């Protein structure tokens, strides 16, 4: 029997050392692992480096909670509302160091680690000040003699991924857009899968072409229904747009953020209690079903 990796959110998050590099928000605005992020804040696991292309407001929340000292990302803010106020305050106050990327350079940095190479080349970034950031190296490509940017690998200690269904083994199905999820899973030393539903391995094996996260890559599986709220999860629930706007309104100053976090993070003891606080029904009302696919022999 393969190992059963299911555990509680609190136990899974307790495995993360302060000072770790954590990649999250990997499917961009889709399926952001907010439940896992909030548990990081509750446990106060500090000095984290956060990696991701954008994270909608997840990184802003972790910065506000004081657990992040560094962000390596392409963008940090609030997609609906623009600014992430905690992020701005922390950078402007000198409390947060930022490594500036583009989305593609984050993807390539993770893919480099996933392919076991020190860097990947790209012709993006050329001509921008991002290319001049210290982590990159602009050079001449030896085949065609054109300028090229070498993007160094980022191998996170942990990647957090939220999926629709996973087996206790860690084998998982994720659908809808995936952003840099698979690159991060392969790049990371450890992977936490939070899932709307834990299913039998047979369900996963019924459609192996949908499985791109497999057990050797996964350390822990946590059943966390509604675990991506307020971000959307394909086939499950819609984005809670009002929540993002209310978050922006509430967090324009530091006290506002603290009050918000007292209510939504520290004031709940887990995702069930959190869920009860969200009064809107976001569940998918008009499901469309994927056309049948068979395997067999």
């Amino acid at each position, binding site marked *: 029997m393969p190992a059963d990796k299911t555990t509680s959110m609190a136990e899974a998050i307790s495995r993360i050392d302060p000072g770790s590099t954590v990649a999250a928000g990997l*499917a*961009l*605005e*889709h399926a952001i692992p907010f439940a896992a992020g909030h548990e990081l804040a509750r446990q106060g696991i500090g000095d984290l480096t956060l990696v991701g*292309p*954008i994270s*909608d407001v997840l990184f802003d929340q972790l910065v506000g909670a004081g657990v992040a000292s560094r962000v390596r*990302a*392409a*963008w*940090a*803010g609030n*997609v*609906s509302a*623009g*600014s*992430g106020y905690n*992020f*701005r305050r922390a950078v*402007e106050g000198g409390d947060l160091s*930022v490594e*500036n*990327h*583009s*989305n*593609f*350079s984050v*993807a*390539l940095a993770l*893919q480099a680690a996933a392919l076991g190479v020190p860097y990947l080349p*790209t*012709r*993006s*970034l*050329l*001509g*921008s*000040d*991002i290319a001049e950031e210290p982590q990159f190296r602009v050079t001449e490509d030896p085949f065609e003699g*054109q*300028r*090229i940017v070498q993007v160094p690998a980022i191998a996170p200690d942990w990647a957090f991924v939220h999926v629709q269904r996973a087996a206790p083994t860690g084998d998982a199905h994720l*659908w*809808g*857009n*995936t*952003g*840099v*999820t*698979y*690159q991060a899973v392969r790049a990371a030393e450890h992977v936490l899968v939070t899932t709307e539903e834990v299913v039998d391995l047979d369900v996963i094996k019924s459609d192996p072409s949908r499985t791109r996260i497999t057990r050797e890559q996964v350390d822990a599986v946590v059943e966390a229904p509604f675990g991506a709220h307020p*971000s*959307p999860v*394909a086939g499950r629930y*819609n*984005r809670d*747009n009002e929540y*993002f706007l209310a978050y922006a309104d509430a967090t324009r100053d530091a006290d506002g953020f603290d009050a918000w976090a007292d209510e939504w993070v520290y004031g709940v003891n887990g995702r069930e209690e959190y869920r009860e606080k969200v009064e809107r029904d976001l569940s*998918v009302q008009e499901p*469309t079903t994927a056309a049948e696919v068979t395997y067999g022999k």
Partner: protein
Amino acid sequence: MASEADGTGGAGGYTAREMMVSAAAREIEDGDTAFVGMRLPLIAFQVAVSTHAPNAMSVFESGVVRDDPADGFLHTMCDLPNLDRAVSTTGMLDVMGRLARGDIDVGFLGGAEIDRYGNLNTTRVHAGDREIRLPGSGGACDIACMSDRTVILMAHEPRRFVERVEYVTSPGHGEGGDWREEQSVPGGGPSALVTSKATFGFDDGELYLRTVHPGEDADAVAADFPWDLRTREDVTGDPVGETAEPTDEALSLVREFDPDGFWTDD
């Protein structure tokens, strides 16, 4: 998707942002593959594919590829209506690979600051002595570097127009002329800027005023720029024109895609 055009595109009766969407939609040609990101460009794509560009495709850095408007309002590119019945929901390397290969015809960009050569800054600005941190590039730098052409949308606010941006988040034409080629920047750079008062082209890499929106004055628009802004007259000999108003069909579509005016109210 049915339009309710009645044939009369009356002056006024639309917001400046609706005007921007309408002008941006016209920058998408039939058959284009467009990198549209979010907000106004996303709505512009939806208008274009519903009107003059039925064979246009949209790609989003999150991994979404669509050939038609989403059936529902979108706060973000990953809202479920944008995923549902998409052509493909895949990953970033897949869609950014298309950009890197040169397969994206037109990309849309915004910015906090733009300079004379269409370089954009969304990373950090100064207000007096205070440095203000902005969200950063997201995919904008990649779109700016690698699209065949880019179209920039910005609110028309003089503080956004600067001689030289403080940080080049998204390269335009750099220092003008053949700068992109000299720097091996692969895509073609900005072809248009659409603001809430006017539209602009680029000549030899430099911004010039092309049209002003109905009711706007060309000299007043030019005065919002801290350098001596060139105009269409300087470039082609034709005087600065008036931006075509949104058609009723376009307006009706904008209001279908953004029924509460979340993105398109002024």
